[in-house]
């Protein structure tokens, strides 16, 4: 029973992190109908920026992540405004290819700049943990988990309550109508992509404090973001949280009770089953289903 609780706790903590990786991905997909294959590369880039911040000026990763977020916001804004916006109305595989091209450039660029060595951000409190009953909870993981939840709620508040956020939602619902209301769709799209990249950067920083990272891990995070975003339903930010926690739990349990790497196969099995039976995600209404897919 203790093992089960421990494994469950780990799964939930890991799930929060996955949710943070996926929430930006889900936002971009839901609002702009773009599957951003370079999302994982943004995550890793965020990790490197925070790592550099720590090794240059000794900035704590929990502050460094704001630097990561700021840099990645501009990177994301730039990519959307000057590249992705140019083909945003094209067929599905055009956008997939373009973001894959960006992914190639980012990953190879990071390989050249930082080499392919494993890195991680070490902190003085990195190995602290506390006992909760018989369950051991590492401090950094808990902080990352709480941060993921706070950010998700903050993002929802931003999108629902602020003028900019509402313009993002409006553009996602009906771009034509939004433009007629005086919303600059080009700017809003770029803004959305920037926010998504910034969130990826924060997630990357958190990941760097918990585990090792290198450019080749980017693909894994993109895939995870896929799975979580689909489970939660596109553009549904609470959904990303629920999907992240679910995948975290499933992976954690499968890792404990199944042999080998069956755990990865199970994540994809869950993905395919959900896609077939509930393509709009497990949580929420079929809000985006009415949009035209092309």
């Amino acid at each position: 029973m203790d093992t089960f609780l421990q494994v469950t706790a780990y799964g939930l903590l890991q799930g929060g992190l996955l949710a943070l990786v996926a929430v930006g991905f889900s936002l971009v997909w839901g609002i702009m109908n773009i599957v951003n294959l370079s999302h994982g590369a943004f995550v890793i880039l965020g990790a490197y920026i925070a790592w550099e911040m720590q090794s240059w000026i000794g900035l704590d990763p929990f502050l460094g992540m704001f630097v990561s977020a700021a840099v990645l916001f501009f990177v994301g804004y730039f990519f959307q405004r000057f590249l992705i916006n140019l083909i945003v109305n094209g067929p599905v595989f055009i956008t997939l290819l373009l973001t894959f091209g960006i992914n190639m450039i980012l990953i190879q660029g990071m390989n050249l700049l930082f080499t392919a060595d494993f890195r991680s951000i070490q902190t003085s409190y990195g190995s602290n943990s506390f006992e909760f009953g018989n369950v051991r909870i590492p401090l950094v993981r808990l902080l990352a988990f709480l941060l993921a939840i706070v950010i998700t709620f903050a993002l929802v508040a931003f999108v629902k309550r602020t003028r900019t956020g509402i313009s993002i939602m409006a553009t996602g619902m009906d771009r034509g109508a939004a433009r007629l209301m005086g919303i600059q769709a080009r700017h809003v799209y770029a803004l959305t992509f920037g926010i998504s990249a910034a969130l990826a950067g924060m997630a990357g920083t958190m990941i760097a404090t918990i585990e090792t990272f290198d450019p080749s891990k980017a693909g894994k995070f993109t895939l995870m973001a896929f799975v979580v975003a689909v489970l939660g339903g596109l553009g549904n930010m609470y959904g990303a949280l629920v999907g992240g926690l679910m995948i975290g739990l499933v992976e954690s349990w499968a890792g404990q009770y199944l042999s080998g790497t069956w755990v990865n196969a199970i994540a994809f099995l869950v993905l395919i089953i959900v896609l077939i039976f509930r393509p709009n995600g497990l949580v929420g209404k079929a809000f985006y289903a009415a949009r035209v897919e092309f």
Partner: protein
Amino acid sequence: MSISTQMKTRRSLIPIALTLVAVVLALVLKSHLPGGELRAVATIFMFIALSQAWNIIGGFTGYASFGQVVFFGMGGYFTAVVMLKWNFSFWLALVLSGCFAALFAILIGQPLLKLKGHYFAIATLGVAEGMREVVINLPDLTGGGAGISVPIAGKFAKTQYLGDGGFYLLFLALAIFALGIGTLVSRNKFGYGLRAIHQNEDAAAAVGINTVRSKVMAYALSAFITGIVGASYVFQQITIFPERLFDVEITVLMIMMVVIGGSGTVLGPLVGALGLQFVSEYLRQHFTNAHTFILGGIIIVAVILIPQGAVNYLREGRRTKDYSLLTNIRKYRL
């Protein structure tokens, strides 16, 4: 024979004549190339076949299969397993692995082809990633992550290794086979049905096309070609690993070639495969460190400037007398 049918036969004779010329050229080239170059050209042939295969489901039917590599891997592993465990000859294994991949496509195609757009793309990607994990986790059958080797010489091998020249011919044959299938599909009723599904699936169903059966058949056909190419690749590589055989990059390369060449045409994937593979090989030799970096840049520029692909761009340009890239960009931009 009326003039119009005469013109029709003449029009259909040109590609056949060109193909014959290309085949003769390829055969002449074979005796003049050293081993390493032979392998490089064989890889080009391999990608010609793969891109034609993807074009059937992605280009004609419009279903962006982002996990096409699953058929490559399944066909390859099928061949490796039957050659190693049951001592099949390579040629029998080749045909069977194509059928195996097609059968798998029919099984997963039934539920997956109901999905549209991104959902289909991601579901197929999930299948490919999931199957890789399955292969890794069945070490008794597939050798798991440590890989598996096919017997190529000695008394345990039914088929002796083909050598650089042999594989050159094999992949040339596969490329011609795939081009032939592509041409057939593009010109018969089945292919027009697929194009109709691409443009508007409901309308296609309304004019009497059995959309489910057409889609599944297109998927199975493209899986068959991909499967036999995977089988040949395995025999060429001798020892294979799940990471390589289910590599997403192979799918991406197929899609890139089709899209850059011009999807939904037979010529497009051919042009794309030739062009991209040449560029990629050139970059690999001249910029060892940064070749993916530059290739990524080329993809971005190509996708933005000619999103409809080179062949379609030239055809449209000839029709409208407008080759301006700016009009081209205006098409899909925000």
